[in-house]
C-alpha cells in the first residue's frame, strides 16, 4: 500500500501540471480543467494496479483525461474553415509573422477548432510523434499530419489577419 501511495504521489508530482495545461487547452476553462485533472487522478488511483509499465503512465493519464473530457461534454462538430492548402502555402509562408504578446497568441490558439488544437498540444507540449498522436487520438498518421499542418496554417492566418485588422477579438471562433 505504501508503494502504491508513493507511486501515485510521484505520478501527481510528475504529470499534474502538464495534465492541467492539456486539460485547459481541451476545455478552455480553468475551473473545468482542474475538475478534469482531479477526476483523472482519482480514476488513475482506482485503476493504478492496472498500470503495469511506468513508461506508459503519461499516455495512460492522457487517455483517462480525454475520456473524462468526453464524458463531461457532448462533442459537437466544430466549424471547419476550409482553407485551400496551395493558397495558404504561398500566402502565409512569405508573410512575416507579427510578434504577438503571449496572451494574444493564446487567444488565437483558443479559437482553433479542437481537432487542430489537440494534436498540436500533444506534439508541441508533450513532444509526441505523429504515430503517437495517432495512437492517442485513434487517427491515421496522414490525418494527424494534415491536422497539424492545417492547425499551424490557420493560426498563422489568424495572426496575420488580426494584426492587419488591429482587433484580436473579432475573429471567428472555433471549438467550444
Amino acid at each position, binding site marked *: 500500500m505504501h508503494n502504491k501511495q508513493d507511486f501515485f*504521489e510521484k505520478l*501527481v508530482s510528475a504529470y499534474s501540471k502538464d495534465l492541467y495545461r492539456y486539460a485547459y*487547452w481541451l476545455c478552455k476553462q480553468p475551473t473545468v480543467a482542474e475538475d478534469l485533472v*482531479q477526476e483523472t487522478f482519482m480514476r488513475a*488511483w482506482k485503476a493504478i494496479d492496472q498500470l503495469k509499465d511506468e513508461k506508459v503512465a503519461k499516455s495512460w493519464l492522457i487517455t483517462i483525461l480525454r475520456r473524462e473530457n468526453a464524458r463531461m461534454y457532448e462533442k459537437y462538430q466544430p466549424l471547419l474553415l476550409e482553407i485551400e492548402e496551395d493558397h495558404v502555402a504561398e500566402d502565409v509562408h512569405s508573410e512575416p509573422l507579427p510578434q504577438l504578446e503571449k496572451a494574444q497568441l493564446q487567444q488565437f*490558439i483558443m479559437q482553433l477548432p479542437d481537432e487542430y488544437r489537440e494534436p498540436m498540444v500533444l506534439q508541441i507540449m508533450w513532444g509526441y*510523434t505523429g504515430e503517437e498522436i495517432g495512437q492517442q487520438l485513434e487517427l491515421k498518421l496522414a490525418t494527424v499530419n494534415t491536422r497539424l499542418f492545417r492547425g499551424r496554417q490557420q493560426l498563422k492566418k489568424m495572426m496575420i489577419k488580426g494584426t492587419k485588422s488591429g482587433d484580436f477579438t473579432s475573429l471567428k471562433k472555433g471549438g467550444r
Partner: protein
Amino acid sequence: MNDLQFQKELQTNPFKLDEAMLAYLAQNPELKASVQKARAFDQQIEEAFDIEIPEGLEERILMKQSFFVGEEAKSNDESKVDQAVKADLSAALDSASNDQPQMDISSAPASVTKLQPKTLPWWGFGGVAASILVVVFSLNLWQAPNSSPLVKSTDYVAHIMTHVEHDPEHLTAFKEPKSEQDLHKLFLAVGATVQQPLSEMSYAGECVVNGQKGLHLVMQSPTGPVTVIVMPGQQLAAMEAFKTSGYQGELLPVKGGVVAIVAHTMEQVASGHMRFFKAIKFV
C-alpha cells in the same frame, strides 16, 4: 520533392527533417530561413501553451485522494464488522438449535413407537437471546460510543473558530510532547495512531472545544501555520469546506470523530491535510 511538399512537411513538424527534406534543403540552402522561421513559430506556440498552474493543485489532488482512501478504509471496516456480526449471529442460532434433546426410541417396545414432540430446552432460548444481546451491544459500541447525533457543520465551525481565535499564541508557540510515547498517547486518546512523524509540527496538546475533549495541533508551513483539531466521538455527514473571519478550512468525518483543518488560505489547508493524513491513521 518540390517546394510545396517541403513546406507542407515543414509545417507538419519543423523539428523533424527526414532524409528527403535534408537533401532538398542541401540543394536549396535559401530554405534554411524557412526552417528557422517555422521553428521560431513553434517556439512561440510552445510558450503560449505554457499557462499558469493554479496554486496548490498538487496538494488538492492528493487531498482528494487521501480522503477517498480514508472513506474506502472506513467502509471496508464497516462491511467486515457487519460480516463478522452476521457470522456470530448465525453461529449462535445454529448452536442453539443443535442443542435440542435427541429422541430415544431404543427402550420402547418394537411394536409401539411413540413419537415425542421436539422441544427446545429453556436454556436454548436463553442462549440465543444472549447471543443477540451481545451482537446488539457490539454494534452499538462500534457505531457510536457516545451515541452522538449528527452535528450541524455551521455549529462546528463556530465552535472551532472560537477555540482557534481564543488563544492565537498557539499558532506561534512551540509545545511538543516530551517523548514519542507521549505523542502516541495523545493521538490514541482521540482514536488515532501515528504512522510517521508529522512534519513541522510546532504544537500538540489536549484541548476542549464546546465542552468536549479533543486534540489541538499546529503545523508550520512556509506561508503560515495550519491548525488541526481532532474531535473524537462526533459525527459529520460529509466533508465540508468553510470560509470565515479571514480563515479557510475544512471539516472531515473520520473514523470515530471529526477533524477540522484551519488556515488562512485553501492552499495551506490542502497542504496541512496532506501532511496530516499521511502521518496519522484513525483506528
